[in-house]
């Protein structure tokens, strides 16, 4: 068993605690962010509720219980996968503030991953509360997954999605080394891709097969769509294993690309503004 470096662990626990407290320092910001999430949920929920208004209807291979479970699960899965603090990496590079962290005896990537985890824990706890309230108010039919194997696959896919999103944010932050003025531009592009290809508004399988196939070649459906589909039992075991393999491949590819881009980025880094 690998030996746990207690000293290093203590460092990251401190980063986690400080980051957690920082989120509370801007309470209005945080509450507004959660309000936005609930509003986005309303549109998607009522849209699907209307489509499945006729009892027993089956559209795009979904029953009402399954599609509304999809929508409800998104509240929790979004907060777990898409909540992040590492979006601050790009403006940090643009301001030249990245130098501060590079000089400290701390791993830059682990530092941001720890901050991401703090953000996820906080957002998830609020999301559970919101989902509970909305569930009581809207009383939707809910699909409970009873198959333990599916639940295990779901946990694996969520873990892969969290890592994948962290790597994507990192990748889209790094062009700032070369284009310090574009710190928000690349992140905006990432958010657009996530918005349309991750399945946060609609399950991708309502689209024509050709578009679905193209979308599944990108890393984005593995963030929200595939984990939710696994939970709902919409996929058979071989498809699940196939999709998990693709997300693992994406993780390896992104780790490799990120390492290359980070190294050449540091060479181009001019600590502008310092």
């Amino acid at each position: 068993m690998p030996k746990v470096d207690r000293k290093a662990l203590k460092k990251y626990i401190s980063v986690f605690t400080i980051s957690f407290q920082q989120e509370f320092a801007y309470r209005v910001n945080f509450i507004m962010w959660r309000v936005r999430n609930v509003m986005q949920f309303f549109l998607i929920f009522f849209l699907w509720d209307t489509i499945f208004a006729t009892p027993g209807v089956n559209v795009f291979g979904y029953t009402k219980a399954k599609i509304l479970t999809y929508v409800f699960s998104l509240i929790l899965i979004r907060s777990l996968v898409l909540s992040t603090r590492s979006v601050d990496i790009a403006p940090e590079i643009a301001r030249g503030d990245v130098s501060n962290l590079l000089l400290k005896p701390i791993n830059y990537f682990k530092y941001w991953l720890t901050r991401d985890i703090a953000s996820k824990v906080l957002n998830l706890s609020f999301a559970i509360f919101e989902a509970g309230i909305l569930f009581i108010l809207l009383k939707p039919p809910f699909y409970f997954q009873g198959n333990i194997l599916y639940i295990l696959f779901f946990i694996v896919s969520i873990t892969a999605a969290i890592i994948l999103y962290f790597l994507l944010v990192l990748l889209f932050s790094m062009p700032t080394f070369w284009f310090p003025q574009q710190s928000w531009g690349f992140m905006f592009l990432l958010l657009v891709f996530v918005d349309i290809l991750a399945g946060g508004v609609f399950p991708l399988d309502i689209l024509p097969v050709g578009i679905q196939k193209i979308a599944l070649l990108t890393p984005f459906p593995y963030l929200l769509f595939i984990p939710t589909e696994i939970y709902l039992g919409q996929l058979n075991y071989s498809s699940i294993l196939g999709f998990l393999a693709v997300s693992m491949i994406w993780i390896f590819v992104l780790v490799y690309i990120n390492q290359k881009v980070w190294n050449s980025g540091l060479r181009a880094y001019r600590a502008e503004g310092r």
Partner: protein
Amino acid sequence: MKISNIKNQNAKIFNKYDYEFLSKFFKSVTTYILTVNRRFIYYFKLWLFMSKNAFLVYILDRFSFSIFLFGKVMRFLMYFVFLYFLVKGTKTLAGYNVNQTIFFFLTFNVIDILAQFLYREAYRFRSLIISGGFDLVLAKPVNPLFRSLLGGADLIDLVTIPPLFVATYYVGSLLNPTFINAILYLLLLINGFIIATSFYIAVLALGIVTLEIDHTIMIYRDMIALGRLPLDIYKEPVRSILTFLVPVGVMISYPAKAMIGLISIQGIIVSFGLAGISMFLSIRLWKFALKKYTSASS
């Protein structure tokens, strides 16, 4: 004295006063129109000047312009494709067919993008408030609301407006509207834009009072995004809240319904009334907020 003479004398006196009153009245009206006209030209020239400066920033930074334009167009197209395949697969959405549903979506975009094009400066307002830079705006011989709202038009949105208008016109013509329906659509669209303007003013006012604007403006965007689809998809009381309390329905759904011929005369009267009330309240809120401005950190 004869009665007829007294009558003539009274008429002369009356005519004299009448003439003086009328000449004064017309003089003041003409002066008022000329002043308003002069003010309008002054502000229009200012707007052109500020917009030109804002456009120059984009032209200098073409790479950034391309990224944002690509992202916006992609998001629009993908949502369009999703709606098309969704309603095609289900045949109707809350009783509306594909063209009608897409027309709701396009109407939402017309109001949203037009407001974003004109009021982009609102997104930069927070930095003015927290840095105290708003002092400089207040010191200038320009209405601070005008400067804060219309101080920098967005070139990216301007580029997307012509194709959006063409698409809206095309899909609208597929609905076979009558002349009256089309006129009502245009009037209610302007009305919806007035409500959008009052939302932006309210957001700016809240920005001064609470120093929080980025999320408030995004909440406004999320709120009006609820009108992206016909409000008939929402259940009560959400539908009524969205129609009258947060008049997203009046802003977006009512113009589209007018085009389809589904709006009543009461609906039209309520729409204009709500626009008037929301504009009145937002201006009051802005005036209140200006009094609360503390000029912190300047």
